[in-house]
């Protein structure tokens, strides 16, 4: 069970963070895209860290996995939609 939590925290957490960092670059409204990217990158490690801590808390692993899947799916949709609007 600990191994599953470890995989969820590390790999799952990384995927979530990757999606989240892209979403943050789209959400921030700074003068330049670079600023959004830099800030998103800076925050991404904190997000990953928080998710690792959450994965190892006493929350049921199944619940964590479902939440992870749902959030990743929403972020994927959000990123794809807004990146297509931006024409990237």
């Amino acid at each position, binding site marked *: 069970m600990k191994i599953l939590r470890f995989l969820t925290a590390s790999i799952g957490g990384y995927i979530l963070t*990757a999606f989240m960092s892209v979403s943050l670059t789209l959400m921030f409204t700074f003068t330049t895209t670079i*600023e*959004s990217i830099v800030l998103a990158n800076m925050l*991404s490690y904190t997000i990953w860290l928080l998710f690792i*801590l959450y994965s*190892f808390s006493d929350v049921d692993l199944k619940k964590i996995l479902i939440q992870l899947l749902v959030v990743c799916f929403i972020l994927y949709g959000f990123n794809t939609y807004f990146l297509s609007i931006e024409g990237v």
Partner: protein
Amino acid sequence: MAREFRKPMTWLHTWSGVIVGWLLFAIFVTGTSSYYRGEITLWMQPETHKSVVSENTFDIALEKALKASQKSKNVTVTLPNSRTNMIAVKAEMQNKSNTKNGNQRQKRKRIPSLYYDANTGELITPRETAGGNFLYRFHFELYNIPRKVAHWIVGIATMSMLVAIITGIIIHTRIFKDIFTFRSKDNTRGWMDAHILPGVATLPFLIMITYSGLLLLNSALMPWGAKAHYGDDIRAYKQEFRTLYTNGVDKPSIPQSRATKTDLTKEQLLKVLYHKDSFDVKNIGRFIITQKNNESTTVEIIPKEAASIFSFKGLKESKTFDLYTLEQINMKNPPLSNSTIVNVNSAFISLHMAHFADSTLRFFFFIAGVFGIILSGTGLVLWIEKRKKKNLEKKSFGFYLVEKLNLGTMSGIFIAIAVYFIANRFIGVDELMRKEYEINAFFIAWLFSYIHAFFRDTLSAWREQLLIAVALFISLPLINATIVFDSLSEFYTRDSIFIYFDIFFVVMAVVLAFIASIVNKKIKAKDLKKC
């Protein structure tokens, strides 16, 4: 609730520390030594040791600058400072080369710096050495591993460290009290105090160094934001980042027509360097003479001591003067960007590298790094101490492996560094592959300490390896004196940088001898128990 949360956090703290603990220990040792990267390289080039700053130094630097300017349009002169005892002159050449589609483009040909004795002005030809650069590169690129893979390995270890630090804070209920608690008993409690004390005392440093380390590995670990907007054209992203970073400050603030061409003479150069608006002459660390074709000659002056936390790499504060009119035409005063986010990011990177730090602050960073080494080392030993009783009842392979790896890593890396320094003195000066031989000596010594650890009783191996390390470190000043000095008086007359090295070697020997004596006591107590 809080207790329920702390329990899994304790587990996470233990394992996030142990799994990558050996790598972290090596990263901390090599990374901490990187605060003196330049000094290590200097020490490993004994040809440079005789250079001492004198009253002539400034004049010699000027003469060398003028001589180099006759051949090059871009000359950088670095004066001796607290980190180097030589004058360095770098003359860049611009060659025109044809591109594939026939266009001519300016191509910069990099010429390595020439080094001169700060007292006599003699050209110094230092030996080839991997120097401090090897240790510096090892702490984030490891060795002989594809760069991206190495960045990922180091990145994962760094992230684990961050997790270990944060969970360490969570599981601690009395952080402030722990700074003043150290029970020097040879039991789990004693090791726990030895682990907690450096962790708590340098907590801000540890968080900063780990987090900024992750930011430095951004392009490998977290490229997704940039990829989403720039696709595979990461070069465009980096170019835009650089532009935002320097935010147009490099534009000359006077019209080109006002700049006047003049001959470069010593008098003119002195007028600029002693200019009332320039830095104090004693604080001039570097000056760059740029002769623009048929336009003007400018002198950019950079101080020895950086005054801003945003100063690092090529972004140090500077003042540029027109050589003929003596007018100040440009001033860089970091932060150069007006973006808060970019500045926060660069402040983190600057903090990690300590480029802005003077020698005192750099020493504090070094000491904080040493605390980091103690933290990771004691963490690994603590894992063993906590499981000793259990292992006596039922032997475990995991315990055996951790015990041996602890020994091979912790004792081994110090032996390897000492051997690396000694190899530098014994490998022939003209040897073509001397850099590689030095590095090979480092890894062979490290490998032997792992092999020795696995074939010997752990406590005895600890004692033997520590004593070997003591012998190696104590022999270093002696070997250095025998090989490098022509006479004993050179011991006192050489630059203080090298005296500090001898002091450091002796301190290392004393510390390791102290640890060896503790291990020796343990062995004796164990033998008594058996009797």
